[in-house]
Every structure is written in structure tokens, then in C-alpha cells.
């Protein structure tokens, strides 16, 4: 049992965002909004070659452009670039126009090299090498348990399928960027970041400045989704430009920069074989997979947060399992962690083949999942969701829908570890009874500032309006980066602890026995003229990890146009103790919608002739718009005994799998490749020829994966602990 109070006034209720008024009136100052006196614009010159030897860069003409105050190289001397968009030089000037003019005036001498931007072609041994000292497809990660071949041979049912997922771009609306004021006394950095301390430490290390001389501030930032940790090359350049120009420099990336260079979700190509016994119990699983995480994704570096690997077999325990996964390097910008890295692609592949198995057995897909899912919370979520969705009444065998526009339903599950620790916080109680809570975390739009205010209000027994939650400053007690859905689980216990300690301290300082409620103001007056500052830190028992989540989707598929319309989603999630109903619902909406974009619309498109990203802005890279949004019904299992668990990532995982299964249920054939654009739907229906890289090339790439040397990994199940 956790120590959270049972009877609550704010915890678990709907509290509007405390920074909402600042955001709706334009008063909120984001990183890109700060205007320190005398600030200059910064801009980056990027490689227009996907692969080249850069022999010389001449900045002289750029320096002569009126208004330009500094021009610097990213690196001295000759160098090689490995993707279109790699940083070469940067300028700072008094206007955007001056910087644009200066970038055009920089002279670059380059010897272009052969390049490759398609991972299927890149996997072939004879394709141009991204790194000259090794093949693009390096070593593969291998794990195995049980006797796979014997299990497949004896199984009652065996299904096989090949699936692929695209490269997705984070596309936070505020681009990456920093404003840096470099002075001899202090380096002040306003960063659009998910980790103020990682920006501080990264900059201090790279600039050779002590950490206590660098201050990073992030009051408001316009979204991150996993791509905004550390200062990045752009942050380093902003700092160096500021140092060179002797003035603050604001360097925000353009949308084009954003698509080229600062992260993406890696692609995946998955060949899956799955077997079950006569009762539908899973017996054997085999996966061969490859994907690209950009130029740095060859070999064993493919795993981890930003790599092309993903958990397999996903969420189900299968006694006999063989997995081989490889990363393929291409001449493109590197991947970074993106909202539940690895999981949406894992869920899409696994949940697709599960539905194929259900169809083969002739079993209801939910029933097949209930028989095999080892996680009791997720089984409960299927039960609750089925009821809400009307699954039993709606379910028909795949392809039973009549007419031109066919309706179908589907479901899928996800899993996320989360958890978090280590945060410190401090509470300052002022003599007038107001309170400040300070914590060096950051609010990405997830509502962490409001979460702090809600918890402090509950524990101190105050109205949230009397509490000011301050975040986003490295002068505050430290907290980790906001990634892995760890912020709530890391911050909440520290605030709880600081507030609990503060009550005791106030009691001591004022001599008042019960300082809460009606006595609060009196107690605060009694403590004297000095505010009380009380620290607290993360401790066990108030937060945990391991969330499930299931989505149900209902779709219409127009078999003449290939257009898919998602009509309704029912999403059942758990995040332990629900701290704030309102912001929790918003985060789930956001995950579902980002997952819908992944399922139907979003995809980075590379040009094979020039190596450039062809769709770097929103007229060509389609984000979900209000017209695409279905009815979204959310059910939350409130489990306060588990403590606080994050919800940002679990909410994005099962969307694509559930929509894909609904599409297959509607039209009776499966669209195996994301995004499920109309051409792929029509190709699946046999109405137009397939246009993708399917066929021989993919087979050749899988053959290369099979031949690749393997690094044996320790076997572990990809199910919540």
C-alpha cells in the first residue's frame, strides 16, 4: 500500500493546468520567445550532400554581410559528411534576413561520394558504405530460448507474416533550439529541452566551463516527444556564436533542419512466424528484423533508446523463441528516442500476427489475447474495454462487412515500464502563507507543473492558487530528464516528501499543533519573518512502474478509394494513482492521436537521387488534423495502491496495431505496411499493383540479416516485471 492519502480534495480530481492562463494569453515565454537585450539570430549551414569529403569552407563573404556579427565552423580542417543536413557552419546576425543572406554567401568545396538512403537497398553487401570500415548491415542481436524448430513442427497452428513500419518524425511544434548568453560570469541558456541538467552538463563539458557557471532555464517548451535531450550540435553552436559575437544568440532550427537532423523513430521490417497449440496457447515465435536508425545505426549500436531494435516477442510469453534483429545504416539523420521507442512498431507487428493466428484458429481475437496475456492488469483492461466498446455485439469474422465502404473492428495491447527515481524538491513557506515548490524538472506540456501544485495542495491542505510551482531551472533541486514516462513517478514522491517535511518544520517553528486548514495563516505568521525552506527527495512506496494499456478501434474502409476513416477508439489505461484526471486524459488523447498519425499518415520520405528529406514541412508530412479525430473514449483504472506511474508513452503504443487489425477485419485482407495509405489499401485489395519496395529487394535484405553475424543477447521476456 502506498502512503498517499485516501480521502482527497485535489489528488485524483480535475484541476485545470496552473500555467493554463499564461499559455492562452500569450504571456508564457517559451525558449523561442525569450529576448535578452541585444540578442542576435543564429542559423546553421548544413551539408547539401548526403555523403561528401568537405575540403574547404570559406566564411569570409558571409562575415562581410551587413548585420553579421559572427561566423564559425563546426569543425576545422577536412571532414566527411554522412547525411544531407549535417552541420557545417553557423552565423549570428542582427536579423533573420541577414543570416539567410550570410548562409548563401558561405563557400563550401566538397567532393561528393556515393550514398544510399533506402535501408532495403542499403542492406545489400554491394551498396555504397555509410562508414568505409564496415558494412551497412553489421552484427545482429540474437536471442533464443527453448526448442523453436521442434515446437513449430508439432504445433496445431502456424502463421507467418511480413510487416514494415516507416520512419516517423517527432515534429514538436517548437523546433529544437537554444538562446545562449555567454558572459565571463555565467553562461545562461534558455533551452527547449526535456532535460535541463543534461543540457547544462553537456554544454559545460563541451565548452570547458565549470558546471556551476552554466545555468539552464526552460520555463515553457513546445513539445519534445523524446528528441530533445542534451544541448545538441545546435546548442553548442549557439553557445560558441554567443561567445564569438559577445552578445546573446537565439538559434532555433527551421522546420527543414528539424526533418533532417534532430531525430526520428527508426523504421522496421519484421518477418514473424507464430505457432499455437489446439487451444490457442502460444508455442513458438520467430522474428527476423531490420530497420534503420539513420547514419549511425549499423551493427550492435542498433539497440537502445534511439536504435532500430524493438522488444520481441511483444507482451506475450512464448516458451520457444528465436529473435534476430539488425540495424542498417543509411545516409540520413540519426534516430532518437521517440515516444515509447520500439514499442509502437513491436505492438503493430505482434498484434497483427496475433490477429492472423486468431483468424486461422477461428477464435475471437480478444479471447486469443486473454489466453496468452501474462499481465493481469491488461487482461482486466480487455474485459473493461470490450464492455465499453460493445466488442461482442460488433465482432464479425474478417471480411464479412458488405458494401463498398466496409466497417471493421480491432484491438491491440501495449506495455511500458516507466518508473522514476532520484528527484529532489524544496518547499518554501512564506510568512504570508503562500508557498513555492521548486523542482529542477521541466514541463513538456504534460502538466508536471500542475502535478506539483496538486500534490502540494493536497498534502499542505491549501488551495492550489496559493501555491506556485517553479520548474525548469538548474538552480532548483535536481531532477532527471523527462523521458521514459518517468517524470510523474520521479517528481511526485519528492514533492510529497518535501511537503510532509514542511508540515513538521512549520509545526516546530510556529508551535502550532495542527498547522493545516484554518490554522495555516496563523502558523505562518508565528514562524517569524524568515521563510521556511524545507527539502524533500524521492522515496520508495509512492510510485512504481509497469503499465499496460489496450486500444479498440472501429474503422470504415472505402474499397474504391482506399481511404480509411477511424470512427471510434476506446482506450483503457492504467497509471497507478491518477494525480489529475484532466491532464491525464489530455495525455492519452495525445498518444492515441499520435498513434493514429503513425498508423495512417506520417512518414519521412527520402529522395534517392539527392538524399534529401522530401517532406520536411506540414503540407507534405501529414500530421493528424482535427478532421481526422475519431470519438475517443478513455477509461482509466485508478489503482492508488500502486503509487504514481507515467502515462505519456503507454498511450501511443497500441493505436496502430488496433487500427491495422480493424482494417484487416473490415476488408478481409491485411495491410502489412505503415502508414496505411490509400495506395496500400488498394494494393492489398488487388485493385492496383503494389508500389513499395516489396518483393525481391526485401527478400534480399532479409537474406542479408540471416547471414549477418549475431551477438548473443541474454534472454528476457518483454513483459512487465
Amino acid at each position: 500500500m502506498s502512503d498517499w492519502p485516501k480521502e482527497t480534495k485535489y489528488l485524483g480530481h480535475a484541476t485545470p493546468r496552473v500555467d493554463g492562463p499564461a499559455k492562452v494569453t500569450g504571456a508564457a515565454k517559451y525558449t523561442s520567445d525569450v529576448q535578452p537585450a541585444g540578442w542576435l539570430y543564429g542559423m546553421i549551414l548544413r551539408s547539401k550532400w548526403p555523403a561528401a569529403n568537405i575540403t574547404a569552407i570559406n566564411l569570409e563573404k558571409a562575415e562581410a554581410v551587413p548585420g553579421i556579427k559572427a561566423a564559425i565552423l563546426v569543425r576545422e580542417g577536412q571532414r566527411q559528411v554522412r547525411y544531407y543536413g549535417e552541420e557545417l557552419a553557423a552565423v549570428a546576425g542582427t536579423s533573420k534576413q541577414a543570416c539567410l543572406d550570410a548562409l548563401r554567401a558561405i563557400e563550401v568545396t566538397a567532393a561528393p561520394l556515393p550514398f544510399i538512403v533506402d535501408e532495403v537497398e542499403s542492406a545489400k553487401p554491394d551498396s555504397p558504405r555509410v562508414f568505409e570500415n564496415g558494412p551497412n548491415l553489421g552484427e545482429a542481436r540474437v536471442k533464443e530460448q527453448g526448442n523453436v524448430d521442434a515446437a513449430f513442427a508439432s504445433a496445431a497452428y502456424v502463421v507467418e507474416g511480413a510487416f514494415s513500419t516507416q520512419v516517423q518524425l517527432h515534429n514538436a511544434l517548437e523546433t529544437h533550439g537554444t538562446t545562449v548568453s555567454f558572459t565571463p560570469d555565467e553562461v545562461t541558456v534558455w533551452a527547449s529541452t526535456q532535460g535541463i541538467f543534461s543540457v547544462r552538463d553537456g554544454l559545460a563539458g563541451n565548452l570547458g566551463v565549470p558546471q556551476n557557471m552554466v545555468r539552464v532555464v526552460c520555463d515553457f517548451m513546445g513539445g519534445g516527444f523524446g528528441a530533445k535531450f542534451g544541448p545538441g550540435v545546435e546548442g553548442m553552436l549557439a553557445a560558441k556564436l554567443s561567445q564569438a559575437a559577445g552578445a546573446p544568440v537565439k538559434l532555433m532550427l527551421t522546420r527543414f533542419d528539424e526533418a533532417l537532423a534532430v531525430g526520428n523513430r527508426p523504421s522496421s521490417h519484421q518477418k514473424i512466424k507464430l505457432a499455437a497449440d489446439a487451444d490457442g496457447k502460444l508455442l513458438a515465435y520467430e522474428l527476423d528484423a531490420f530497420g534503420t536508425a539513420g547514419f549511425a545505426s549499423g551493427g550492435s549500436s542498433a539497440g537502445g533508446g534511439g536504435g532500430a531494435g524493438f522488444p520481441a516477442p511483444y507482451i506475450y510469453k512464448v516458451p520457444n523463441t528465436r529473435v534476430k534483429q539488425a540495424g542498417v545504416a543509411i545516409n540520413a539523420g540519426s534516430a532518437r528516442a521517440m515516444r515509447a521507442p520500439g514499442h509502437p512498431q513491436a505492438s503493430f507487428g505482434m498484434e497483427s500476427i496475433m490477429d492472423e493466428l486468431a483468424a486461422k484458429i477461428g477464435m475471437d481475437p480478444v479471447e486469443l489475447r486473454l489466453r496468452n496475456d501474462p499481465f493481469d492488469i491488461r487482461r482486466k483492461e480487455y474485459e473493461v474495454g470490450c464492455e465499453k466498446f460493445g466488442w461482442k455485439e460488433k465482432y464479425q469474422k474478417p471480411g464479412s462487412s458488405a458494401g463498398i465502404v466496409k466497417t471493421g473492428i480491432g484491438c491491440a495491447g501495449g506495455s511500458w515500464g516507466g518508473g522514476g527515481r532520484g528527484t529532489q524538491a524544496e518547499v518554501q513557506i512564506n510568512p504570508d502563507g503562500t508557498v513555492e515548490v521548486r523542482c529542477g524538472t521541466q514541463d513538456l506540456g504534460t502538466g508536471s507543473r500542475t502535478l506539483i501544485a496538486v500534490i502540494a495542495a493536497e498534502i499542505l491542505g491549501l488551495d492550489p492558487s496559493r501555491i506556485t510551482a517553479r520548474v525548469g531551472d538548474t538552480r532548483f533541486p535536481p531532477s532527471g530528464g523527462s523521458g521514459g514516462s518517468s517524470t510523474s513517478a520521479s517528481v511526485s514522491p519528492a514533492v510529497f516528501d518535501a511537503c510532509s517535511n514542511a508540515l513538521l518544520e512549520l509545526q516546530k517553528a510556529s508551535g502550532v499543533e495542527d498547522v493545516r486548514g484554518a490554522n495555516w495563516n496563523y502558523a505562518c505568521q508565528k514562524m517569524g519573518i524568515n521563510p521556511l525552506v524545507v527539502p524533500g527527495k524521492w522515496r520508495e512506496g509512492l510510485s512504481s512502474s509497469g503499465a499496460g494499456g489496450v486500444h479498440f478501434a472501429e474503422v470504415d474502409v472505402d474499397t474504391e478509394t482506399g481511404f480509411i476513416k477511424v470512427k471510434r477508439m476506446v482506450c483503457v489505461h492504467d497509471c497507478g494513482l491518477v494525480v489529475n484526471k484532466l491532464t491525464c486524459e489530455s495525455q492519452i488523447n495525445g498518444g492515441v492521436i499520435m498513434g493514429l498519425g503513425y498508423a495512417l499518415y506520417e512518414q519521412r520520405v527520402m529522395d534517392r537521387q539527392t538524399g534529401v528529406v522530401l517532406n520536411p514541412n506540414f503540407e507534405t508530412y501529414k500530421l493528424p488534423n482535427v478532421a481526422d479525430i475519431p470519438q475517443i473514449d478513455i477509461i482509466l483504472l485508478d489503482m492508488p495502491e500502486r503509487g504514481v506511474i507515467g502515462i505519456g508513452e503507454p498511450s501511443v503504443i497500441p493505436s496502430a496495431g488496433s487500427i491495422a487489425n480493424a482494417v484487416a477485419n473490415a476488408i478481409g485482407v491485411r495491410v502489412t505496411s505503415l502508414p496505411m495509405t490509400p495506395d496500400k489499401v488498394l494494393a492489398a485489395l488487388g485493385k492496383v499493383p503494389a508500389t513499395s519496395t516489396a518483393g525481391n529487394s526485401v527478400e534480399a535484405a532479409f537474406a542479408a540479416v540471416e547471414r549477418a553475424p549475431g551477438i548473443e543477447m541474454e534472454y528476457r521476456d518483454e513483459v512487465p516485471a
Partner: protein
Amino acid sequence: MKPSSDSLKTSDSPPPGSVSRRNFLKALGSTAVASAATQVKGVAEDLRKFNAEKIHGPGPASITLEINGEVKHFEVEPRVTLLDVLRNQTSLTGTKEVCDRATCGACTVLFDGTPVYSCMKLAIEAQGHQITTVEGLAKPGQMTAVQKAFVDCDGLQCGFCTPGFVLSVTALLRHNPTPTEEEVRKAVSGNLCRCGSYPRVIAAALEASGVKQTPRAEILTDVRLA
């Protein structure tokens, strides 16, 4: 100009200089060729008039803008957009730059009461018009009913797109105080949100129109696992 307010109506009788690519295409696609022809004629007249005037640039020109009821003077090159002037020559940074090419709506301002993308408007051609940014909707420290509804319904997450949505909804409610959900969707169809706040934006707009909204999420307590 965005499709969010009554842009079709304005495209029938365009004020000089008001033709945007979006409106032009929209008029071609949906209403009538006649309307497009009117616009083309409007452009031609506008061009003639423009060319007859003094040529501005390429150096800075003195311009005067009326922003949130205040008259302000700027020295800007003619190639500078209204968005650029707002964000970089005033402290009015509520107007956000996201796509800089009329696809996202984060830079929406009211232009004589009509929502427009300020990234698609040169500052020099914004002279003589009333420009309202998100900061100009309410007095400092106060909120309009629309702004309050966005806060109460959580019609925002990171908040970067929010000023644009607030202005689109504000313009909608000024000419249609009791919109349907479909009308709200249409009004904000020119605004993108990457956090996925759309369901709560719709709720906020409806709440601002007087239809009380509640959180949609159902909370299941006392969960018993099998």
C-alpha cells in the same frame, strides 16, 4: 486568409491585397470560377496600383502598424513578414512561428477581425488594418470567455499551438455564438496541434459557447484483478 471564419464570403468581394494562395485555391475548388475571376481581376488592379506607388526596398522602409489598438512604427525590409515583426520587433511573442508557410496556424492573428496566418502577410501590406494578437484579446491578468474555457477544459498541452486555436475559436464565436461541433471542427481546421489536444479544443469551444463540458475519461476505482 484561413478557411476558419467566413473566408468564402470574403472571397466573393475581396478587399485589395487580400488574395492568399489558400483562399485562391479554395475559391477555385469549391465555389465558382466567377469568384476566382473576380480575385484575379482584384490582383491585377492591386498590382497596377502597387506599381504606380513608390517602390519600397530592398533596404528598410518605415511602416506603421496598428497592433492591439496601439499604433507602432517600425523600420523593416519589405520582405519581412508580419509574423517576423510581431515576434522579433515587439514583445508580443504569443504569436508563434512553427511552419512559416501557412500550414499550421500557430501564427494566426485577427486581421480586421478575420483570422489570418501572419507568416503569409508581409508587414508592409498589413498597414492600415487592425491587427489583434492573442495578447490583445483581454486586459493583462484577465481572460476572455474563450481563453477561460481553454484553461478549464484543458484545450491545450504544451501550449505552442494554443494562441492560434484561441484566435480561430474567438473569430468563430464572434460571428456564430452557438456553433455545432462540426462548425467548431471546420473553424479550427487550419490549426495543427502535435500534442493531440483536438478533443479538448472542441470541448473548450463548445463550453465558451455556453454548453457545459466535463472531462470524458471514466475513472474505474476499486479495480479487482482476476
